[in-house]
């Protein structure tokens, strides 16, 4: 799993590989940093994302809740069909903003 963060007023997080239980540890640290920053808009680019487990979903929910709490926004882009299917099964497709 690769995580790249480009900080800014619109912070871009690029994920590639598997957002599974092992990767979740690193992703959680990045999320905490982003939530503590001044970023009001976060874009999560999932073009290279191949797999999301429930540990990954938990963190996406944490990120969404954190951004909402600070009156910011989170957008997910380039999410693959297989992962969209997971979002539909779990009801995440109605909680997250997916473009």
């Amino acid at each position: 799993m690769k995580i790249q963060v480009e900080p800014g007023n619109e912070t871009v997080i690029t994920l590639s590989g598997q957002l599974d239980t092992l990767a979740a540890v690193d992703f959680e640290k990045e999320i905490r940093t982003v939530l503590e920053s001044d970023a009001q808009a976060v874009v999560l680019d999932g073009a290279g994302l191949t797999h999301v487990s429930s540990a990954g979903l938990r963190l996406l929910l944490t990120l969404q809740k954190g951004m909402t709490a600070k009156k910011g926004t989170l957008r997910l882009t380039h999410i693959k069909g297989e992962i969209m299917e997971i979002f539909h099964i779990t009801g995440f497709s109605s909680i997250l903003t997916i473009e």
Partner: protein
Amino acid sequence: MVNEVHIVNDLGQLRVLNDFVDRTIESFGLNQRMSMPLFLALEEAVVNIIMYAYPGEQGKDILIRMEREEEKLTVTLVDSGVSFDPTAQAEPDTTLSLEDRPIGGLGIHLIKKLMTEVYYCREGDKNVLTMVKELNEYG
């Protein structure tokens, strides 16, 4: 066709699991599209066992067995940990709004949705979780 692997109750073993799934997909001649649902369901089930079956104990065995019979793939997980039926857990409400959604509790729900059938039984001192996937849709 049958493939088996033994792992111990350590999250680092998920890499072994990943390789095992990849190898099995190849040797069973399964469609690559099976990879995501299969690995996801297995990860959820195995993480559950690693985290909760053997409290305070290390190096404990978990057996993962996959069998293909025509268009049916059967995945069986066996551990000798504390008795636990993951299929008996309450279903999360996936229609709740952002504010009301609890963080967590999705694992077994995902397994049930990704696989065709999931059942649990206690055999002696072992937990046996069986997950079946009909392969028709994947070829």
